[in-house]
């Protein structure tokens, strides 16, 4: 019995070029972040110093987060003293909700939910085989097409992955970072992985 594993990878990285003023960048924009960053401990921050090209990892103690505003404190507070042209990269730390593989034979279904712009894909929980353990979900957000094609195309893309690679293996359904997978051609604007 060959087994396919369906692979999903979300996006969560953004780069900024510092000019002057406050050492604060705004994250969580839909174009760069699938995972909502609510705690500074969810990200790593590096600064490439424009003056010498050095790469500097910023310690957690040198960061603060207020809603979507991430501030790099001064060097004297474990942060970094930014200069014009410095490049700041904020990247989500990988967790079970940023990337995962799920067994094809634990796939439960995909359906529209209460919104016209989201669809939910479910697998049996990877953390439990209990009688009612809940499900692991991947929620896709897209621009509504009034039901014309998107939901059907998502279903077809998932079906393609479920039945792909007859020898078994990893099949990417959607890798938002690398823009690959059986759903890559669809106008999906957000993907949230939730391992129960």
């Amino acid at each position: 019995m060959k087994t396919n594993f369906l692979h999903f990878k979300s996006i969560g990285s953004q780069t900024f070029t510092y000019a002057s003023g406050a050492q604060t960048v705004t994250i969580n924009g839909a174009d760069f972040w699938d995972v909502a960053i609510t705690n500074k401990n969810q990200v790593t921050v590096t600064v490439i110093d424009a003056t010498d090209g050095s790469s500097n990892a910023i310690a957690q103690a040198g960061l603060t987060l207020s809603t979507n505003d991430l501030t790099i404190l001064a060097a004297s507070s474990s942060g970094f003293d930014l200069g014009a042209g410095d490049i700041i990269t904020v990247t989500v730390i990988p967790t079970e909700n940023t990337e995962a593989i799920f067994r094809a034979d634990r796939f439960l279904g995909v359906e529209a939910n209460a919104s016209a712009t989201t669809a939910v894909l479910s697998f049996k929980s990877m953390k439990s085989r209990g009688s009612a353990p809940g499900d692991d979900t991947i929620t896709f957000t897209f621009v509504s097409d009034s039901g014309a094609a998107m939901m059907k195309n998502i279903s077809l893309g998932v079906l393609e992955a479920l039945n792909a690679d007859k020898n078994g293996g990893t099949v990417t359904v959607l890798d938002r970072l690398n823009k690959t997978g059986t759903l890559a051609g669809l106008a999906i604007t957000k993907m949230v992985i939730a391992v129960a």
Partner: protein
Amino acid sequence: MERYLYFSNPNSGAPDETQETAMYATSSLLGAAPASAITTSLHFAPRDGGASPADIVTLTHTSGGHKAVFDGIASLVNAEKNNMPFQVVADVENSIFNISGVTACSIASTD
């Protein structure tokens, strides 16, 4: 024919404590996901027959190497290379690692 995945991680010398070695049926592999930048958790149906939580084998690997681990474990589950029922994933005792980039493993069962 069912296939099985083998892991060992003795703390010192021969394995002589719980969770130093484990073998799981490939059908017990429930899924996998990153635990950090350098670790990936493999979730298995509990060895003690309970319902939850899952047993977890954590593989340590090169930073960002989660996809390589996913591909590697899928390959071993499907015995792509040798069609053998006994698939060694990470055998620290014998310094055998059959997924590229993996350097260590730990086993956590709930019983």
